[in-house]
């Protein structure tokens, strides 16, 4: 019996009226210029997000989010469940890849100044997505409940204390109390699997809708010159190229997951002193080092307070970057470009420094 695809599609179309979406996909165009390679970063993030969801659900089938059960349940995943160690490895490495590509995406948008009018809201939702991804990583890092992640979480949740007035409340909210305990673990698990996914889907939907609404940006000089940039249709030309990139990224992810599968350390001991070499995940290293270089006391306030305030000011400034950089073609625009390079070098140098 021959299945008539057209009739099948027509049945759905009569009820859902999705044809406009497909028509839009064929009409949407992707400009081709010397920087158009960076357009691939957006969909690569979606690829890794998808992988995280699938592997995350698989891991959650066996993970037990309690103080007593957490580490052992991961030990069981790694030893008893077929290929459990590989699923855990993929989930762990895919988080690294995801955040790395998010940062590359941010840098690409920064240097091409794609955040300028009318894409300010896209930038701001993107910044929110960056923060949510890093919180994803932070909450997930605690879940194995080993010595290192416990200490890193203690340090990380202590940082809001430096903020006056609200800091203590924030820390208590994060920890589920005054200290990092089993309650913290359960709370972080809830954030990681329920609250943050809902939040990221909501913000992601807005972000992607904005991207479709505004279209793809072109380099600044082309916009100034009002040059008509040659463009490719999104479907099928650009999608096919994206599939190539996805396949290669998938292969690299699997290679690295197989070669560098993480092991499971010993269960955390709440009473034990902090282990040597306490450090957060790599994407927090530069912030960690920034906190470390400030002296303990700076006049009437702690060094930590100054560091936290500076970091917050920087984050807010970057969040409102499209409004700060309101004249992208001018001198201020150039300075902001160089500031981006400076920021990148600072992040890399401080990250490496924190490991030494």
């Amino acid at each position, binding site marked *: 019996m021959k299945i008539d695809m057209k009739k099948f599609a027509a049945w759905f179309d009569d009820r859902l009226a999705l044809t406009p979406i497909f028509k839009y996909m064929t009409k949407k165009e992707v400009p081709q210029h010397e920087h158009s390679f960076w357009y691939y970063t957006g969909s690569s993030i979606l690829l890794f997000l998808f992988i995280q969801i*699938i592997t995350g659900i*698989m891991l959650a*089938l066996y993970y037990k989010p309690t103080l007593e059960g957490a580490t052992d349940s991961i030990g069981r995943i790694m030893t*008893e*469940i*077929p*290929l459990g160690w*590989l699923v855990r490895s993929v989930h762990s490495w895919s988080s690294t890849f995801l955040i790395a590509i998010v940062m590359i995406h941010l840098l690409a948008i920064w240097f091409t100044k794609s955040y300028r009018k009318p894409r300010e809201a896209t930038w701001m939702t993107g910044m929110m997505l960056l923060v949510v991804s890093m919180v994803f990583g932070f909450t997930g890092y605690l879940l194995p409940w080993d010595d290192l992640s416990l200490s890193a979480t203690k340090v990380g949740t202590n940082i809001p204390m430096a903020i006056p007035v609200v800091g203590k409340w924030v820390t208590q909210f994060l920890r589920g109390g005054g200290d990092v305990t089993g309650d913290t673990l359960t709370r972080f698990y809830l954030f990681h699997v329920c609250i943050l996914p809902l939040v990221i889907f909501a913000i992601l939907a807005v972000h992607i809708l904005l991207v479709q609404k505004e279209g793809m940006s072109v380099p600044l000089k082309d916009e100034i010159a009002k040059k008509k940039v040659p463009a490719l249709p999104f479907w099928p030309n650009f999608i096919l190229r994206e599939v190539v990139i996805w396949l290669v990224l998938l292969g690299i992810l699997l290679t690295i997951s197989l070669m560098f599968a993480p092991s499971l350390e010993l269960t955390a001991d709440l009473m034990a002193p902090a282990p040597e070499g306490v450090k957060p995940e790599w994407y927090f290293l530069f912030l960690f080092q920034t906190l470390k270089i400030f002296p303990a006391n700076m006049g009437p306030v702690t060094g930590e307070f100054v560091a936290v305030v500076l970091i917050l000011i920087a984050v807010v400034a970057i969040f409102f970057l499209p409004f700060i950089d309101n004249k992208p073609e001018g001198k201020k625009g150039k300075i902001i470009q160089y500031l981006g390079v400076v920021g990148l070098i600072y992040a890399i140098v401080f990250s490496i420094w924190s490991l030494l």
Partner: protein
Amino acid sequence: MRIDNAYFTRRKFLNSILGGWLGAVAASFISPIVKFVWPPYKEPDEVKLVFADYSGMQPGEVKNFPWGSKPGLLKRAPDGSFIAWVGVCTHLDCNVSWVAAKQQFFCACHDGWYDENGTNVSGPPPKPLRRLEPSVEGEDLFVRKPGVGAKT
């Protein structure tokens, strides 16, 4: 050979190779995922117990022992030997208990009864309780699946 008008074009052929291969790659991910989501579950072949815990059993007494994640039932026969069953009802997997007053096993879920040999006598259970083979070896009491010999 050149065909001027063909229904099955070169394009269709290449399209189907591409689509088919893509589908094959996607399908090859299914097997490991399925293995992960449905892990192999094995009942133990044998269970080692401390005989001292059961040596004081009176004839006719029934005690529980762990059989993997299921309860096992151990009964001391009048002649002093042991009989063992998997203490799970053959109807719908509820745990079974020994009612000494009636000398029968009772499943509370749907009012199923088994006699002292584990044979189903009343209620919905379709089959007798599954038998296991207990054997005392020195200080240990081994309970094995029927047919599983002693491991050295």
